[in-house]
């Protein structure tokens, strides 16, 4: 198990090095930020001075070397635009993103799992059909459209929820649902198929023969075993929510990390893009690692194989 973990950690570090190298090259291919920092009327001398001041006059391999060295020392650099440490920007935005991600994931699970269970139990029935419609809609409605419709209905027509911005729990509901609906549909489908498989197992038949109450059979014996793939999927989803909520964050004017990265791409703020992607990829890779560990912990067969291997 220890060897397995060490291997996975090394893989994770290697993946992160690849990610930062790709991001470093791509950001520099996209244009010089000095063009946006100066007025179009600025002289070539102003342009050269600012380029030098930002260290962008050095050859790319030198810039790359400095960048990697600084990261190893925990220094993500300063924003090209604000000249504030990048880590401050990330720290400022990460709570909003985590807050949205957590609530969206909770909503996904709370909606997706019960509907998935009942859909499996009432297979072919009205509820199952309705659940399938719910799933198809959830996976086919574009988040920007759904978000705007929710804003229009709950914010403008009913006036019961804020139309955008970050504030209390009320501000969270619409963006979290927009973000979570797509995945709740996926969780519902996964729970349904997993439950269908589990409900056909011998131990479920045995539990029923023993005369256990149907709810206990379903929720205690059935769901507990069916949840394994759902949990792993949900953890990965959560990590995806952290970086993949750009559309939702933009529509709801939610000041999260995804929007910060998007804005930094448009302003060529290399250090923020690099650090943001690095943080998100680190979270993703760590999430993957945790899922693997969780899986091997939940499923003794996997643990045995890993240990044996």
């Amino acid at each position: 198990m220890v060897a397995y973990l060490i291997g996975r950690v090394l893989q994770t570090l290697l993946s992160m090095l690849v990610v930062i190298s790709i991001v470093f090259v791509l950001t520099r291919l996209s244009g010089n930020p000095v063009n946006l920092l100066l007025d179009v009327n600025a002289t070539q001398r102003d342009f050269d001075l600012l380029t030098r001041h930002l260290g962008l006059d050095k050859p790319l391999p030198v810039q790359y070397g400095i960048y990697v060295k600084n990261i190893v020392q925990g220094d993500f650099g300063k924003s090209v635009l604000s000249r504030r440490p990048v880590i401050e920007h990330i720290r400022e935005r990460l709570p909003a993103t985590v807050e949205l991600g957590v609530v969206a994931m909770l909503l996904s699970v709370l909606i997706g799992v019960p509907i998935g269970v009942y859909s499996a139990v009432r297979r072919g029935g009205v509820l199952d059909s309705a659940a399938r419609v719910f799933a198809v809609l959830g996976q086919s409605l574009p988040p920007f459209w759904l978000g705007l419709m929710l804003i229009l209905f709950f914010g403008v027509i009913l006036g019961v929820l804020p139309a955008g911005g970050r504030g209390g729990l009320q501000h969270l509901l619409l963006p979290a649902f927009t973000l979570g609906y797509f995945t709740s549909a996926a969780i519902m489908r996964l729970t349904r198929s997993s439950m269908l498989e589990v409900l056909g197992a011998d131990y479920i038949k045995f539990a029923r023969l023993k005369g256990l109450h149907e709810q206990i059979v379903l929720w205690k014996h059935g769901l507990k075993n069916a949840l394994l793939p759902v949990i792993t999927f949900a953890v990965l989803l959560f990590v995806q929510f952290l970086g993949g909520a750009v559309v939702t964050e933009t529509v709801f004017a939610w000041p999260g990390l995804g929007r910060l990265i998007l804005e930094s791409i448009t302003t060529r703020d290399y250090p923020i893009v690099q650090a943001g992607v690095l943080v998100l990829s680190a979270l993703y890779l760590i999430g993957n690692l945790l899922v693997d560990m969780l899986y091997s912990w939940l499923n003794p067969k996997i643990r045995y194989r890993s240990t044996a291997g």
Partner: protein
Amino acid sequence: MAWRRCCSVLIVVVLAGTLGVGLASAQQPQGTLTVAVATFGNERWLAHLYPGAEDVVLKPMMENLLSRDLKTGDLSPMLAERWEVLEEGRAWRFSLRKGVQFHDGHGEMTAEDIKFTIASIAKEGSANGLAPEFRLIKSMEIDDPYTITFRFEKPFVAFGNKVTQGLFASSAFIHSKHYIETVGEEAAERHPVGTGPWKFVEHIRGDRIVYEAVENHWRAVPHFKRLVFLKVPEPATRMAMLRAGSVDVIEIGGEYVEELKKVGVRTLTMPNVAWLCVLLGGQWPSKSTYDPTVPWALPDAERARKVRQALNLAVDKQAIMQQVLGGLGSVLGSWLIYPTDPWATEALMRPYPYDPPKAKALLAEAGYPKGFEVTMNLTAWPGRGYLPDVGEAVATYWEKVGLKVKRRPVDRAVFSADFRARAYSGVTLAYAAPLVGLEPWEFLIRAGYTKATGGNLFIEHAQLDAFIERLSTEPDRAERVRIVRDELGPWLYEYVPGVAIGAVHTIVGAGPRVGDWPLIPGHMGFHNWEYVTHGR
């Protein structure tokens, strides 16, 4: 009698007390005014760090030496209560208002602060759009703490327009020398200080900027206690937030005007804030990037002019103004002239007609009977999101007269490098020049004066240089008006530098909490927040 006198005194005391309380509460800022804008610019607050797009969010907190009159648009006092133009424009003397305080007790504004700010804008490496012009200052003399004189080698007759709050972008906001030198630039960036009617409270980058009213401000005590700017990039969200009452004011493009009317949202129009045209890149024969095969920049001036004329006649400007800009603007002929200008004659305002058959004939006369290939850059600029749509519409009209148009969606950051280096010969783009000076030649210094330190972005011509030199050194405004009306305007009309579309307006969506809002004519971008009253 004594009783009567006593009663009278009592009534006077009660009335005075009531009135006094009434006045105090009327002047007491109340409530929050929340504004949703698409961008905060680069979000830099020191004079040498903002290129200009921060104008909208800096204006509440900062002030300039001068402003502009709400009715006439003429220069008016602000931090300077008087100014004199001396030595035929070679010197400008400003007498400062006494007792104007920087926020949070950072002292009185004096001539030292003016000198410090202007020097900071002019220094090498400055990002401020006024840097090239402020480098023309030969000396800054502080006669006493409230008087400063700027001296120039040559007359700088429009210097007042560079230090006014009444234009976009007013980049010469006055900063506190003492504060910045005491706390350092980094700390001053985190907590900027100005003399405006609103003081800084909080800035969360890319999310919000919060200001609080200065309750005893020398010029105007705001009606609202707090002013909050939210960055909401998506226009549909901004509209929904306004309709839901989450915000009180939104920045919105003219293309949404009909939609706003349909849902009953109140709109305010800011008229004649920018001049819309299509730039034809490559008209710079003295530069190494000049390409003599570009049809509108041929060495044969008459053939090139026919091509430029054809490109104008091929475009239905009225339809673009109506369909793309929601009718918010006026189609005009001669360049950089607004209908309210003193030099705007009927002849100069007359648009080039929409005449595709004549356009085809002119192309044939110029040697292009089958048209030619052209690139149209589709680039959005801050606050002018409609430009790619204008470019697309123009491209479609050009195709109808036989041109083969290659659309090139390109980001501003990428194109800016070409723009600066004039490396876009043969490339065209829709552009809206904001009203950066009160006289058209002020913009032409940037766009087409070969001796400018920066600028000279798309055209060069000896005649244009001569006009700019005459106008920029002519101290008599009446004479400048005459030159523009009778000489420069007609010359531009005949020369046809590009595709003239006209003057455009912009709109503001305002909610029920917003009452009166006096706006300066021709000022692009939000301003005058301190004068916004509560809605009834």
